[in-house]
């Protein structure tokens, strides 16, 4: 049972035990709890769980469902050094994915604009921007061939 006042964040973390989504401030300012609802990034701490009824919610756990296989954004963050303490990382990656789904070939300014609601205290952001720009073409490729990829993984 989900209480009417429950946030999507508390349902994810406390009820479903999907703790990959982080709670940094619970007031919508740090972005650590960013998830996608119908492909759009939202702060799960400010989003009523009941409003997610019959909608698609994607969390960091849903990004690389097949064990060991990383999403291009995850690989790019690792390679570029776009994470240190890792606490902002799930939200940062989900915001970046939201951007790439809407704008598959963003420039640097668009990346910065899209991630302006996600705080990171460790990296200085430069490596995060580099990671998103690096991942963009690969995410485009992955989107173009989801069916093929699924077929391959079944085989």
């Amino acid at each position, binding site marked *: 049972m989900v209480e009417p006042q429950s946030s999507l964040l508390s349902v994810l973390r406390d009820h479903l035990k999907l703790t990959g989504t982080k709670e940094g401030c619970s007031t919508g300012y740090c972005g650590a709890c960013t998830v996608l609802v119908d492909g759009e990034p939202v702060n799960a701490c400010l989003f009523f769980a009941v409003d997610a009824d019959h909608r698609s919610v994607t*969390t960091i756990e849903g990004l690389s469902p097949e064990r060991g296989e990383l999403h291009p954004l995850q690989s790019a963050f690792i390679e570029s050094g776009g994470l240190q303490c*890792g606490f902002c990382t799930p939200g940062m990656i989900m915001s970046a994915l939201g951007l790439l789904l809407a704008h598959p070939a963003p420039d640097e300014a668009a990346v910065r604009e899209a991630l*302006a609601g996600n705080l990171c205290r*460790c990296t*200085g952001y430069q490596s995060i921007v580099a990671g998103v720009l690096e991942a963009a073409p690969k995410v485009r490729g992955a989107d173009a061939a989801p069916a093929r990829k699924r077929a391959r993984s079944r085989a």
Partner: protein
Amino acid sequence: MPERSGSATIGSKLPRLDSPAKAQGQAVYVADLQPQDALAAALLRSPHPFARIVSIDIGDAKQMPGVRAIAYSGNTPAKSLDFGIKDQLLFPRDLVRYAGEPVAAIAAETEDQARAAATAVKVAYEPLAPVLSIEEALAPGAPLVHPDWQSYEKGANRVTDRNICGLNRIRRGDVTAALARADAVVESSFIFSAGAPGYLEPRAAIALREPDGGLTVWCGSQSPYGNRDDLADFFGLDPQRVRFINQFVGGGFGGKILMAAEWYAAALALQCDRPVRLVFSRHEDGLNLFPRHGGKATFRSGASKEGRLLGMEAAFFFDTGAYVGYGAGTALIATMLASAPYRIPAVDLSATLVYTNKQVAGSVRAPGGPQATFAKELHIDELALALGMDPLEFRLRNAWQDGDRSPTGQLLEGVRVKETLEEAARAIGWEARRAPGRGVGIACSWWFSACGRSEARVEVRDDGSVHVHSGNPEVGTGSAAGALPLIVADRLGIDPTAIVLTLGDTATQTYDGGVGGSASTFSAGQAVKAAAEDVRRQLLERAEEALEARRDDIELREGRAQVRGAADHGIPIGELAAQAGTPIAGRGVTEEISDPEFDASLVQSHDFASWLAPSFVTSAAEVEVDASTGRVVVHKIATAQDVGFAVNPAGVVGQIEGGAVQALGYGLCEELQFGPAGIINTGFHDYLLPTIIDAPKVEAIMVESPSGAGPFGMKGVGEPPVTTPAAAIGNAIRNAAGAVPYTVPMTPERVWRAVKDRRDSRI
């Protein structure tokens, strides 16, 4: 060049081992642990900055639904915590000394029940006039934050006098005479606001009393072993039965060295037989913060018309809040930075630590560094401008060189001030002509490498896996998850991703002093290196027999011991462990390295007067200032840092880039504000961390001059890059707009006022 071997070598770029888990949301932080039978905890905090506690009554609260334990002054030890001055109790008894100070902790079945019960604890207060600034604290007849200050036990070198809880001084030569001889003398006064560490993960802890009388604490700490010892000592427990299990830490920056949530979860857990889980909200974390010290400083220096510095006076005052905590380091470091890295024949440098009724200031990343460097480097620019000299040229002319002595008489070797100045200046384009409204600034400094006790264990098992135990926790810096495995991989010739790391779990019996003082790779790296070399020696010994070859002809490479030049004549190292019938294990410990010598006659009450393996750092910044609004846009920061030797360059670059943006926040937008009722801005909506939009391009330049003391010649890396950028930005603002506020943060309003005042004064 250090010896290189095997598949992954020190000095190559290694993505941190924890990054796949972090990128997938699988890294577990304390608040991610949700034991099924856990009780939830809440704290009752003082609403007053300063008040007498008349009475505390927990009677009603105990009867509230779901309540299982209440901890407060009435049922916890009356012992003082020991941070050099025994001025703090776990729960206050007679006086509360800051708004937000925990007075009681409650454990209940649900968080709502715990919070409800907290409001039912009846505390009768008699509010007192609080001391909210350094000026108020030092005014004649000021109320005493600690009326009993004279009765406190304290360590050597701790100076106390009413609201003063620290005072140190460095004096060399005759400053008055030197300034009288000078062709130019300038005096400048600075104000530093207090700042937050700014980690994204609010503090949390889970504690469970064990049937054997011990205690297990799940924490996210920078210093699990130190915390364990403090906690065991306070509650009278056997430290060997107290286990701290560190989880991933969502950033520390010095704010998670001392315990907060751990104390209260433990105090409650000792009263029940279920786990007690305490997770701070962002607001509560703000109330329980260990901020960067606010304060002020006055500098007066003189130079000859040829541009030689002759004398300098500097006096710092730091607001350390309600208790001394880890505040002393800030004042000690400030005097060490005040005149560095310059040759100045006569100096008089002092720093005073002052109690106020505010949150307890701590050792935020490079404690004292950004403050002292901001004041000193803006002051140096002011003197250069008074002499009509280029600020870079002025610095180069006065910079330390090999063989110079520090103000405390330490002999300086491997000095790289000049190189870092030149590299940063080149990267920013110092000589380039710039459009109106644009400017450049430069700032340099020095820092230390701290060597704390650290132990490590490295073990090769028969399946070929390599297990590394280090007490050093991974808080995000990449020392433990990047540099340490790289060192092991280098020594054993293995792929670092084959390493299984166990970090910061006191059950592994590998003591470590924790993350602080840029000590992690410097200290834990030494221990891990020694342990790995012990294993390496044993592997080669066994391989000699197994391969019937001379040891000198055997190399460890790609997980195998093999005869050099004959890749097919080898054996997997796991096989060597299997033949041994037991894992091949080695232990390592840091060697005692004595601090460099200094001249004790030059210092007063100073126990950090010489610095091990000092490093040198320069930042240069390019900014654009809109004089009509005071808005500052930082286009670029270039930081050139002497790192000794970069064990993992990927990690070093991450520290320099991240440090630059933290420092930008310190310089331009971060300011803890205090009103009559205490701290005002505890959230990310009113305490402004730099966002990705504010962050400039950062160029990280590594200058390598091996230290002789650190493993592979490295020096401490984490703190220096946060010390210089704010000062470089300040000097760039003056270069662009003709004026700069001598207050950090340099907010648009302050910049606008500084520029306007300068224009007005010219009319």
